[in-house]
Every structure is written in C-alpha cells, then in structure tokens.
C-alpha cells in the first residue's frame, strides 16, 4: 500500500464532508512537474503499483491542428506512422524491441491531441524512454511504408463507416463549423484520406512542425525511481531540438442562427437526434465547463426527469444522453437520443428545447445538485485505481491546458458551482442561435 494509494481513500472521504470549498485539490496523488530546457514538460506520479509503470507521451496536436485544406486526417495518420521505426531502430527492429517488453501499449488520436501509451514492468523503463524519445526525434519511413500505412488508415475509415454514429459525427461537425478545423472529425474527410498516398513530403513537414518538445508532455505513473527517471528523461530527450510551429487556426465566428440538417444513413437504424450547442474553450472557461457538465447530467442524464419520462415511462426512445466535450477551442455540447418511431422525433426535439428552457428559467434544486457533485467526485476518484487509468484520466486535461493543475481547478469549480451558475450557463450557451440539429434516419 503506497502513501499515494492511502491518500486516495482519505481524500474521497474528505471530499464528501467538504461541501463548499476545496482547498486541497481533488487529485489525490503527489506529483512533480518539470520542464526541460528545450520546453518539454514531464509529470511524474509515483504510485505503489508493484513493478508496473505507465508511460504516456501526450502530443498536443490532434485533428484540430490540420488547418491546411485537403490535409485532414494527418494527426491520426501519425498515430500509425510513429510505429514505423527510425534510422537507429528500423521498423522491424523497433517492433521486436517493443514486443520483447511485452507492454500493454497503443495510441489514440482525438480532435485536440494524440496520445501514445505503454504500461510495462519497471525494469524496462529505460528501454521504453530510449525507444520513445528516439521515435519522437528520429522517425524515419520510406514513401512505400508511408503509402502502405495510408491503406490501413483507409481500412479503418471503412470499418467505422458502417456505424451510423460515424456518419452522424461527420455531418454534425460539418454543419456546426464553417471555418474552424473542428469541421472535420479525427479520421478526416474521405477525399483527403484517399489522397494521402500522394502526400509523403507533406507528412514530413507535419511531423517536423508538431512533433517537437514544446508540444509534448510526458506522463510517468506507477512504481519507478523518481531521481533515476528524471536523469533518464534528461539524457534521452535533452538534445531534442525545439521548433514547434503553431497551427494557424481560424476561430469559428459566433453562430448567428440555428442550423439543421437531415441525414440519410444507408443501413438500418432507428432515427438518431443530435442537438448540439457551441460550448466554451476548456482552458479559459473551466468554471463554465464544470457547470455545463453538471447541467448535462441534471437535464439529460440517467437520473433526469426527461430520461425517466422518455426512456422509462413513455418508452419513446432507446436512450437520451448528454455528450459534452471538453475541448481546446469551443467544442460541441451534444444531446443525443435514439428515437423508436420517426413520428416521435419532433416530440423529442420539443422536449429537449423545453428542458433547456426550464433550466434557463429556474435554478436547480440545491440538494439534487450537491448529490450530483458527490457522484462526480466519487466517480473520478474511483477511476484512478491503476497507473494506466490515472494516466488516461489525466491525458486530456494535460493536452488541453499543458499541465495537470487543470484537474484540480476543474473539480474545484465543480464543487463550488451554485444553482445560479447552472442557470447562467444554460442561458449563455444553450441559445437558439448556437443550436445545430441533425436527424439521422436509416434506410426503410
């Protein structure tokens, strides 16, 4: 049992007793943050997880950074290319070395960041730091390898395309954004994916601009020696040349009128309703985002009056749920529902609007709000039970803000959110002119 694990229990208990102000942060573990001279930040979180370490490389580049027309999908493509090796360790050598480590590892890409992760036995820590730092600094791949990987990406696109949800997401992003890069989803536009094989040189430029130390945060969680790890990080990343070039992203102008679209999905599905509003940028508006998250659960979560009416009592929908994203730039606040009969779609739409109006007009019940806050905190803390889950939970906060402090700030805002705050975000963000509505219907 580590000091840090013991603290988990203590802080969960404290969290329940404190109802107003959290002076200590909610994040229960000790951590250290430092930055190398070249600008690369690292976060160390020691836990007593016998012999197990999680090592995350968070690149603060996602599909958001694909601002050049015709080049969507490259952040995700690099999630693939990064496994192709370097001049020091060509692809097959790299593969063999990683295989011998027996790590539980992979990578994923989101709109705002790309995350490479491995969980492994701690005797392999130096080998992992050496290999990770090498591929981030010295990635090398032939045009043929590049082209082959673009084929795998197209395969991934085809695989996902059978789902109505992929179609819905694509359409919603296209509808809600006209100039900002959130217009495309992470996998990219199909025509751009098709054209990828011809963009070998561009891919190198993409890598050289974004895979730089100032744009990467390393997160080490688990059973490791802190001093030794700091030395290793300095040794292997210290020579990495800075050179990050920020993407030229155009802010989305504020939406002036509601937008709506009907989408035909070629397969069979029950109708899906997606009502999405523009939210805040997370980094600058943690207080608003905390209140918005609470509002989402109160208004559309499983314990909401609307959920009970539509799912349990009237049984008109398969489900209704909020999908409120935390994003680096203003993202989308979705309300999803799968409706059983197409004739009821308008009815559900009206109820969503009425529900929002209710929260705009009346403050929420304080006791209900406090119960929800307690739930949110318990859920967050209970999910921090392994090195990998700690790292996965922190990765987005780190990516959006560049640091770990945002976790405490966000939960502090959540604990302090008042009924007035909830009412205020309902009035500010859930306005008609910022509304985007898609009704997706399947083939008859």
């Amino acid at each position: 049992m580590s000091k840090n694990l013991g603290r988990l229990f203590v802080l969960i208990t404290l969290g329940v007793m404190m109802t107003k102000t959290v002076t200590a942060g909610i994040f229960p573990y000790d951590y250290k943050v430092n930055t190398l001279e070249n600008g690369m930040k690292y976060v160390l979180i020691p836990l007593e997880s016998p012999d197990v370490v999680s090592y995350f490389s968070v690149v603060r580049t996602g599909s958001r950074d694909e601002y050049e027309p015709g080049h969507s999908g490259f952040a995700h493509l690099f999630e693939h290319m990064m496994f192709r090796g370097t001049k020091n360790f060509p692809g097959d050598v790299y593969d063999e070395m990683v295989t011998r480590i027996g790590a539980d590892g992979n990578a994923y890409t989101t709109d705002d960041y790309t995350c490479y992760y491995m969980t492994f036995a701690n005797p392999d820590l130096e080998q992992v730091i050496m290999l990770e730092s090498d591929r981030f600094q010295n990635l090398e791949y032939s045009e043929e390898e590049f082209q082959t990987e673009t084929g795998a990406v197209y395969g991934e696109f085809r695989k996902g395309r059978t789902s109505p949800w992929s179609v819905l997401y694509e359409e919603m992003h296209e509808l809600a954004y006209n100039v900002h890069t959130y217009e495309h989803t992470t996998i990219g536009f199909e025509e751009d994916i098709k054209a990828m094989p011809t963009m070998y040189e561009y891919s190198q430029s993409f890598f050289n601009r974004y895979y730089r130390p100032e744009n990467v945060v390393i997160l080490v969680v688990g059973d490791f020696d802190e001093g030794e790890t700091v030395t290793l990080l300095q040794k292997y990343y210290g020579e990495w040349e800075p050179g990050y070039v920020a993407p030229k992203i155009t802010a989305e102008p504020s939406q002036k009128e509601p937008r709506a679209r009907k989408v035909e999905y070629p397969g069979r599905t029950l109708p899906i309703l997606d009502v999405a509003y523009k939210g805040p940028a997370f980094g600058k508006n943690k207080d608003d985002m905390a209140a918005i998250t609470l509002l989402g659960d109160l208004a559309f979560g499983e314990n909401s009056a609307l959920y009970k009416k539509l799912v349990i009592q009237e049984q008109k929908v398969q489900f209704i749920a909020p999908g409120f994203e935390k994003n680096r730039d203003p993202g989308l606040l979705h309300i999803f529902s799968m409706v059983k009969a197409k004739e009821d779609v308008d009815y559900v739409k009206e109820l969503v609007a009425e529900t929002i109006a209710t929260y705009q007009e009346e403050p929420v019940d304080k006791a209900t709000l406090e119960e929800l806050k307690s739930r949110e905190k318990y859920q967050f803390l209970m999910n921090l039970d392994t090195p990998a889950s700690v790292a996965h939970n922190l990765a987005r906060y780190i990516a959006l803000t560049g640091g770990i402090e945002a976790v405490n700030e966000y939960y502090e805002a959540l604990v302090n959110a008042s009924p007035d705050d909830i009412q205020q975000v309902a009035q500010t963000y859930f306005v008609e002119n910022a509304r985007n509505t898609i009704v997706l219907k399947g083939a008859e």
Partner: protein
Amino acid sequence: MKKNTKFNLLLAVILIGTNFIFGGTPVSDENTVLVPVKEDPTISFRLWFKVGSQNDPAGKEGLAYITSAMLAEGSTTSRTYEEIVSALYPLAADYYANTHVEQTVFYGRVHKDKLDKYYELYTDALLNPAFAEEDLNRIKSQVLNYLENSLRYSSDEELGKAALYNFVYDGTPYGHFPQGTVESVRSITVEDVQAFYQENFCRENVVIGLGGGYDKKLVKRLQNDLGNLPSDGTDSSVTAPEPAEINGRELLIVEKDANATAISIGFPIDILRGEREWYALALANSYFGEHRNSSSHLYQVIREARGLNYGDYSYIERYPNGGRRSKPMQNVSLRQQMFEIWIRPVPNETKHFVLRATVRELEDFIENGLTEEEFDLTQQFFSKYVLHYAPTTMARLGYALDDKFYDIDGSHLENLRTIIPSLTREEVNSTVKKYLQSEDMKIALVTNNADSLKSALVDEIVSPIEYATPKDKEVYEADKVIREYPLNISADDVRIVRVEEMFEK
C-alpha cells in the same frame, strides 16, 4: 410511471411464499470466491449464476439474457425502476448483468462509504424482482433494436463473428446468439421470465464473488441473504455441446450492401485452460494472432506488409467485444472452445485474395510452427504481456471465478506467469499440430455480390491483387502464390443468406 400494481403485489406474494418455503440455506464457503485487498477503499461484487444462453428453452432464445436484464434494469417489489435509478445515482455506483453462453454475472463496485445503501439495492434487485410488464417491454425493445439494426447494419465484423458462432455450433445449445432471435424475443412474456428466474437464478446456481476492502461480516451477510434466492431443487445444468463434424471448408456468406468484407473463420478445439498444453497453444496463438497487437503474424502479413485492413487476429478462447477491448473478458467461459480467426474488413475487391492468404498462413503455421527466433520473441513478449490481464480487483475476481468454472487447481493467472516461461519450442509446435488443422473449418463472410464470390471460390478463379502503392519484392513474390492458392471449396458447402434473415428466427 404506469405500473401494474395488482400484478406486482401478486408476484411479491408468490416470491415471499417461495422464499419462505424453500429459502434460507446460506450460500456455502465452497461457493464463495474472495479476493481481499484490505487497503482498497472500494468493494467489488461479482455474482456468478451458472446459467446462460445455453439454458434458453427452444423458441425462447434470449430468455436468459432478458431475465438477467430484468434483474439489473428492472423494478423490484418495493421500488420502481425509476426509484432504483434515483437511489443509485448519488452512490456513484451501479450494477450490471452480463449473460454469455454458460455464465451470467451481476457485477458492480462501490465505495465503502456507500456500501449499506448499495447493498440493499443490489440484493433487492436479485431477491425481489417485480418482473413488471413495462420493464419487459423496454428491455425487449432494446434487444430487438440491437438484433434488427445494430448487429445487422452497424458493425459488419461483429455480425461476421456472431454468424460464425451460430454456424459452428448450429444445432447445439451454443448455437444461438445470447440475445436470441427477433422471433423468439418477441414471444417472451413476463411468465416466461418469471419461470426462468425461478428455475435458473436459484441458490444452487450461484457463486459469490467479493473483492476489495470488504469485511468478514459482509461475506456472511451476503451468503445468508442469497440463501433466499429461489430454490426448487431441480438440476438445470446442460450437457456440454457436441458440435457437428465439419467436413471440408464450409462457407456462410451473409449478403448485404457492404462497402468492405468482414471474414471470420473457426472450428471447435478440444482443449481448455488449466492444462499445460493449453498454455503451449496460447503461446503459439499469441505468435499467430495476438489480439489487437502488431506482434500478430497475421497482422504483419495482411495489414503491415499489404495495408489491406485494420487488423487480423486469432483466438483459442471466445473473446467477446473484441473491437472494444484490448484484454480478454472474464466470465465468458465455455466448456467447448473454438479456434477462431478474425480478419477485419478488407476492400471488397481483395476478399478472395485475403481469404486465400489467411488459409495459406494457417497451413504454414500448422506445418512449420514457430522458428527458434519467433518462439524466443513470443515467449518473452507473452510472459510479460499476461501481467496486464488483471490490473484491477474486479478483473482478478473475474479470473478467480473462472478458475472455479474450469476447476483449476491454483490460478490461471499464476499458470500464465509460471508455465509460459517454462515451455519449449518443440512442445509448442507439437501442440499446434495436435489441436489445430486447416482442412475442416467454417468460414463466415459479410459482403456484397455473394453469388459472384461463390462462383469465384468454387471455380478457384485466380484473384490477383493490385496495390495503390508499391510493396516489398517479397510481397509480390508471395502474392503470385496466394492469388492461385487452392481453397478446395465445393458449391454444396456454400450457403448464402441475406442480412435481413440473420437472427430473424
């Protein structure tokens, strides 16, 4: 909420009566599996009922699944489902049911602070279900939507796998999907659910699993309280299936307007975890097709070298939710397992080629086994990789219950740690030859233009492949062989089914 109060009252009387007459014998220590972690501030509950889709009566396929959903997502005699949702919400805890072929588990995790309230709700759900008509309607609607829409149309690879399982185990208790069929689900009534619960979700069929920071009193309390489960003394066990013999290569083509082709291949194998040979086969399988891992040989051949799809894997145990999981699931144990290959969707124009390439790789794998280098690398990888199988108390509890299912003396997780490093290449390769073969197998494809694929397969039409991008010389050399590689499929062994007919009845 509309509620048939009179019906529920009657049901409550029946249940109370049942418990009064038959209940009361606590669950024994022998049927209690404990994974204590004293410092853990949470408690993991995992109750295993020895019932699954194999127990579904003919014509009522899906009944085990729906009954368990009625317990986890339905009203009790004292609380409506709405009230249960409201009561669980502030606890930041929930409970879920998972019904597979042989096992059903009810699992949930709660912080110690919230234990008392949670315990009350959890046990109430299992002991005092109301089986309300409106709950059944809601759950049936969800299952029907899954069968009619999601499974048929939104994930061709899941459809392909489900089609393969039904195909391989056709005519046995394993031969239907746990969610049943459209026709059978529609026919299920409250009375069916009530009777199935009484017969199968009984004291004799339950094994308690508790993990984390519980205390001894909780164990006793749960043992005593679950003594009030129904008990009629009848034996509801089902004989392990004997799948029909496969003669040659039999194909099921599920035809739909698909933009890519999903391929699943399988045949029954006669080996279960616990035996040393199983671990030898697991190591070999890790080389040939480690799940969601680039070390998989099939992945290297089809995705890495040729860029034809997203991944290619193989299995010696059932692996549900493979698209969403990176490690094996617990409590989906089977007494009869199959060897399975999962080829993720490939471009339609390459389907014949990829099928040939896959079969060729399997034949080569069986014939030649692993080289010394491949063995050494895989052994080192797999010995470490298995350490990631159970990172949480809940997962370890799941494995401990499965140890009981497979009657393993000791622990499967420990076996993985100790046996894998002790295996020899000769042992592994001879085990592959003993248990795997490539002549008699079933293949499920989800694709378009089924008739033309059938003709191409039966007539052994050459299937050349063109790449949009240049490949290594070795790839082109191998492709010359693959494009003509005989599959030996006869017209009589190819069945074409329209997707609308899948899981209909």
